[in-house]
Structures are given as structure tokens and as C-alpha cells.
């Protein structure tokens, strides 16, 4: 008799949604000048959660002007000690409201509450705590005796970790003395708007944080605005390149955190059960909507069959469904357009001759879903081995020698992350040295911490977020990205 879980849904009652939201400019919610609204929906149910304002050129002007005034009159001149105290206040408010924010994040994004509650929100608060402490210690960070902020930062973030990406952007910017105009992703604006409310609760001076909702065009207007000194973007490599082109000749400082196609390399001496958990966490965490996801599994040939068998058995136990159910492992795909992209790439995998296996799980009637999927017989030429799928789809390749593993792992224009599984310490360090990636997880995967710098090599972008290295992106020191 199959073992069944009873539903264990987290209550939505803790979230108090408005029917519509304005833009957060200069410390107040205001209507967009153009008056255009768009809807944000729950990807698990396709239910409309709220209407959100689409910021146009006038609104971007207003927000950048407010940020400039706040930079020059309040936040720039403020002592590091006081900036720190505001950030500590924000960190505490996030902790106090973390259940509400986790539920809201799962509703707007589709990620399991287990992840938003246990991963996203604790990291969001930790990020503000970490950077709060830096605000009055910047002269000890190795950027010279008098590090200066850059000014107004334009920040554009993706939909996969909406509030966490906000924290990665806003916390270091404010700690270093910059003011910000942030645009959350079109499909996940709600936790950023809740954060605006937290700024208000914290009595953060008006204009220090401004939140503009909108789609790609709003983002373009923001990053191309002549009044911004810094652009920080997390998203696709394609858009990152466009931003880099548009910023050419402007002197704007850039941090780009772009796509990835990480190799997760498993050697024949790896602890297989732990490695399988790591593989699952590497690619099926957050439905694979992770730029550093371990989407290319490189198995040493002698253990390939054993690992694939274990992996399929483990994937058969994953529970796909209601993101607010505490037992759910795999939530909803964030949008119909993302689902279409996953479908398209999966079809290319089938057409190009790789062998598809999908976990036999029931798919809910409403919402956007994709079952955990594994492709075997993948070659390096296949699109599913080269292109970022950004979904719960794993491509499995094999290798014989460590040199071949390095060669295959590095055979990508990306270089964001990589994984190594082996019990041999010297091999870990040997591999870690050779993998051209910004983050290398050995015998673990998808770990994050505000003290740990994150960012890519090659076309995965440049600049780091987190750690002492991440401060450089928000300080006026040439050569720091």
C-alpha cells in the first residue's frame, strides 16, 4: 500500500494583500504617471493576486531624482554608524515578518514554502545583518582609507529568488552609502513591495530605497537613465550583454550576475547516496530556476548506471504540488512563458536523440508545472547540454578521467558554479583549482551565505555579491567590479 501524506498547507491568512499597488518613490506609494497596470498571478493556481503599476519614463525620472536627492542630502552624508543601525532595523523587521514574507513569496513565485521559509527568508535577514555591520567599517575592507560610495544604483532582479535577490542588491548598496532604485521582476513584484513597507516601518529616509514595478521596458529605462551611477543586474546573459552595450561610454559601474550551465562532477569514489541528494538539490532546488543550478551532471563512467538508478528512485519520491503545502518538494514553474521555454528545450533534447525520463508524478490541473526530468545519452553538442534551461531538467554526461571531467566541465561559455563529489581531498582541491567557475561546491551544492562571495567567470557575468569582495561593486575604487 503506498504511503500517503496528508496535506499540510501553510495558512495564507498571514498575508494581507491589497488589490492594487503603486510605485514606491521617495518614501511613499504613488500611482504610475501613465496609469498602466498589470496583474501578478499565483503560478500554482493562475489566480490573480494583485494589480501592480507599470513604471514609465516619468516614473523612472522621479525615482532616480528622489534617489539622487536622498544620496546627496541624507544617506551619503550620514555616518556609517547610523546607516548600520537602519540596516540592522530592516534586518530585524524582516525576521519579525518572515512568515508573512515566505508565504507571500511562495504565492507569487510558486516555490515550495519549505524553501521560502527555510532558505530564502533566513538568507534575506542574514544578508541585511551582515552588511549592516560593514556600514561603519568600510575603511577596514581593503579598499583604501576613505572608500566612497558611487551614488545612485539602478538594480534589476529576476523572479527566481525575488526577495533574496533584492537583499543581495539593496543591502551592500545601502551599507556602502549608495541609494537605490530597484525593479523587481514583472512576475514576482509582491515581496519587493512588502519590502518597501518595511523601509517605511524602519523610518528609512525617503528616497533611499525606491521600488519601481514593471517589465523589461521599465528595466531598460532604469538602467539606461543618465542619472544612475551604478547598474547591478541579475538575469539572463542576453539581457546582460544588452545592458553592457547600453552602458558603454557612460562610465556607469556594472555588476552582472548572468546565466549558468554548471557541471556537477561525480567521481567513482563519491559517497553515492550523498551525491544523489546533492544532485537533486543541485538541479531540482527551486524547480531548477537557479542560475547556478547543477544542470550538467558529469558521472564517471564506472558508476553512471548506479547513480542514474538511484537518482531516478529518489526523484520518484519527490512531491510536486501546492507550494504552500509544507510537504511539497517541487513547486510551480513561475510563468507560462518559462514553461514554454522548458518545453521547447526538452523537445530539442528528444529531437536531438537524448533519452528522456520524467518522474511519474501527478500534475495539478491548474497552474504551470514540469515534472523532474533527466536526460541520459546527452552529448556536449546537444542544446540541453549547452543552453540554460532554467527548469527541473538534468542532462547527464559521462567521463573517464579527471582531465576529461575538467575539459567537459569547462566547455561552456558560462562559469558561474560547479560541483565536485569525491572522498579524496587532494582531488577536490585539484579540481577546484581547474574549474573555471566563481563558486565551487565540493560534496555539497547550492549553499549560500552573505559572507561568501557569489558571481561568475566568463559569460556568467562579473563582480561579486556577498563577502568583503562584494563591497567593491558599490565603492568608488577603479578596477573594482
Amino acid at each position, binding site marked *: 500500500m503506498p504511503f500517503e501524506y496528508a496535506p499540510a498547507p501553510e495558512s495564507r491568512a498571514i498575508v494581507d494583500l491589497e488589490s492594487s499597488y503603486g510605485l514606491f518613490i521617495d518614501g511613499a506609494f504613488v500611482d504610475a504617471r501613465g496609469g498602466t497596470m498589470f496583474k501578478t498571478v499565483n503560478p500554482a493556481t493562475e489566480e490573480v493576486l494583485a494589480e501592480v503599476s507599470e513604471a514609465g519614463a516619468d516614473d523612472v525620472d522621479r525615482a532616480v531624482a528622489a534617489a539622487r536627492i536622498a544620496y546627496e542630502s541624507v544617506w551619503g552624508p550620514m555616518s556609517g554608524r547610523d546607516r548600520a543601525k537602519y540596516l540592522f532595523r530592516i534586518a530585524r523587521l524582516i525576521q519579525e515578518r518572515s512568515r508573512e514574507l515566505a508565504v507571500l513569496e511562495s504565492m507569487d513565485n510558486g516555490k515550495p514554502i519549505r524553501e521560502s521559509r527555510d532558505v530564502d527568508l533566513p538568507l534575506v535577514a*542574514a544578508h541585511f545583518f551582515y552588511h549592516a555591520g560593514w556600514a561603519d567599517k568600510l575603511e577596514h575592507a*581593503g579598499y*583604501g582609507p576613505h572608500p566612497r560610495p558611487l551614488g545612485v544604483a539602478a538594480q534589476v532582479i529576476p523572479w527566481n529568488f525575488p526577495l533574496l535577490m533584492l537583499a543581495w542588491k539593496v543591502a551592500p548598496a545601502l551599507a556602502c552609502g549608495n541609494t537605490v532604485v530597484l525593479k523587481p521582476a514583472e512576475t514576482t513584484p509582491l515581496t519587493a513591495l512588502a519590502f518597501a513597507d518595511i523601509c517605511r516601518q524602519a523610518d528609512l529616509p525617503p528616497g533611499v530605497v525606491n521600488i519601481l514595478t514593471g517589465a523589461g521596458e521599465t528595466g531598460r529605462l532604469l538602467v539606461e537613465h543618465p542619472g544612475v551611477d551604478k547598474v547591478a543586474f541579475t538575469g539572463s*546573459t542576453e539581457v*546582460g*550583454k*544588452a545592458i*553592457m*552595450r547600453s*552602458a*558603454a*561610454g557612460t*562610465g556607469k559601474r556594472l555588476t*552582472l550576475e*548572468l546565466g549558468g550551465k554548471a557541471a556537477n562532477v561525480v567521481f567513482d569514489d563519491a559517497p553515492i547516496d550523498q551525491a544523489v541528494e546533492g544532485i537533486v538539490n543541485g538541479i531540482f532546488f527551486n524547480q531548477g530556476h537557479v542560475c547556478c543550478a547543477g544542470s550538467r551532471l558529469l558521472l564517471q563512467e564506472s558508476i553512471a548506471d548506479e547513480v542514474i538508478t538511484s537518482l531516478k528512485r529518489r526523484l520518484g519520491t519527490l512531491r510536486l504540488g501546492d507550494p504552500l503545502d509544507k510537504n511539497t518538494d517541487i513547486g510551480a514553474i513561475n510563468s507560462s512563458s518559462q514553461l514554454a521555454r522548458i518545453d521547447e528545450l526538452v523537445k530539442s533534447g528528444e529531437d536531438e536523440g537524448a533519452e528522456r525520463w520524467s518522474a511519474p508524478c501527478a500534475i495539478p490541473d491548474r497552474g504551470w508545472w514540469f515534472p523532474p526530468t533527466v536526460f541520459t545519452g546527452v552529448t556536449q553538442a546537444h542544446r540541453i547540454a549547452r543552453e540554460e534551461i532554467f527548469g527541473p531538467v538534468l542532462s547527464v554526461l559521462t567521463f573517464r578521467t579527471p582531465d576529461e571531467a575538467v575539459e567537459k566541465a569547462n566547455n561552456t*561559455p558560462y562559469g558561474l558554479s560547479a560541483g565536485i563529489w569525491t572522498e579524496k581531498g587532494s582531488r*577536490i582541491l585539484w579540481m*577546484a583549482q581547474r574549474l573555471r*567557475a*566563481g*563558486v*565551487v*561546491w*565540493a*560534496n*555539497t551544492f547550492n*549553499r549560500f*551565505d552573505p*559572507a*561568501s*562571495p*557569489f*558571481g561568475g*567567470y*566568463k*559569460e*556568467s*557575468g*562579473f563582480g*561579486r555579491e556577498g*563577502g*568583503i*569582495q562584494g563591497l*567593491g561593486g558599490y565603492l568608488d*575604487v*577603479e*578596477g*573594482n*567590479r
Partner: protein
Amino acid sequence: MSDHSPATPASERLEVRKTYKLFVGGAFPRSESGRTYEVTTAGGVFLANAAMASRKDARDAVLAARKGFGAWSAATAYNRGQVLYRIAEVMEGRRAQFTADVREAEGIDESAAEAQVDAAIDRWVWYAGWADKLAQALGSANPVAGPYFNFSVPEPTGVVAAVAPQDSSLLGLVSVVAPIIVSGNAAIVIASTKRPVPAISLTEVLATSDVPSGVVNVLTGDAAEMMPWLASHGDVNAVDLTGITDPELATSLERDAAGTVKRVLRPTATADWSGDPGLSRLRAFVETKTVWHPMGV
């Protein structure tokens, strides 16, 4: 004894003139284009015909640099520091030649030229010392909230295409090249177009200073012709636009660099090459790699 030509009186030796070539992959090729251009002193007196490197030469230099990068980036920091110091030692033995080159190229007097050469040699020494300290200055052990050992180290970004300053023919050149290679990158550097001779003399030092072939490749000619190819080349990881004097060209190169998300150093202020170089150039061409490992029994 009877066939003295009037141009060479018995008391004067006929000088052996040097052919000024490129420096690619540790060898001294001519430009594959066969082109040369006239180089004069600052005062306009003919000095030499220098090779006018082409797009093909630039591509060859990328291949050489990529080859050089492998061994150089894998060398120990201690070894790289020794090699850079060796460059300073070999230059020191050729102070007179460099002083003459700089005096002619920049049109400055003997003592000013000597000061430039001394500063250039001292700059190699300064950067040589950075090789085995950079990871401690820019790296970190990170106190993450969990049972993990976590550390960050700077690593070279790869192949860097640089345009040396147009004015400071030796000190500026060294100040651009040294911070690129000390961390393990391989450089393709386009020398000052009008003042390439000190750069060419430097290649002879590099060839005899234990610098592995391909680590520094020096092209002479027109940066405006070659850089668009280098800035859009898929196997170049970073560009240093220091010597690009035309702002529109620099902006266009920045746009080209976006095609493969290259790292771009476009200095905002006019450089004072005699000042403290600081860490900014070193930082511009390193990546931070962070490694995690669980702790447990």
C-alpha cells in the same frame, strides 16, 4: 684598402641596424601582412621601420596567449614573482639602451629618460612582490553560518588584450603589462603607435627573462585597426583600453566587449604613471573563486 666608399670613412664602423618585429608566442615574426610603418624620434628624425600588425597577427597573438595562459596560470605565485623580478634584473643591465630609446621616443632629456627607465624597472620589482601576496590581500576565509569550510581566492581572468599608453612609452607600458601578468593572465599588448621602440626593446628583455612564451605578446601598429577584432574575439577574456585616446573608439570597443561579457578596464582619469599604482589594475583582471566544503566526521 683602396675601395673605401665615400659614405663610410675608415674611422667609422657601418652600424648594424635592427629589424623591428612583433613578439608573439616567444618568437619575433614580421607582420603576416608584410606591412611596416616609419617610426621617428619625437623630433621627426627617422628611427626605424616597425611592423604594422594586422588583424591576423592579432588573432595569432590570441592563440599564443591562450597557450601561454595554461602554464603561466598554473605556475606557483612564487615562481611568477621570480620571473617578474628577473625582468627587472635584465632591464637593469640594459639601462643605457632603454634610456636612449625613451629619450628619442619621448623627446625628453637624458636625466628625465633615466628617471622613466628607473621607475619602469622599479615597477617590475614592485609588482614582482605582489605575486605571492595578492591571494592574501584579495582572498578571504569566509565565516559562513553552517558547518562548512569556505574560502575565496583571486584567479587570473585569462587572456587580456591591452592598449599601452600612447605617451609614456616604457613606464606606462610596464605599468599596464605587469599587473596583467603577475596574477597569471596572458597579455596581448599593442605598443604606443608612434613610440614603439622601447616596447620592442622590452620584448628582447622578456624573451630572455624566463617569461614563458605567449605570456606577453607585443604588437606594433594601429590599435584602432586591431582592437575591434580583439574586443570581439571569443577567446579574449578582458580588455584594457588605457591607450585608446579616441573616446568614441573606446566606447565602441566597450560595446564590442559586451558580446562575450569581457571585463573592461577603461580608466576614468588620465594616469599619472609615476604615482602609487595601487591595487586597481590588479583587481581588474582577477576573478574571485569561492570554494565550499562541509565539515564533519
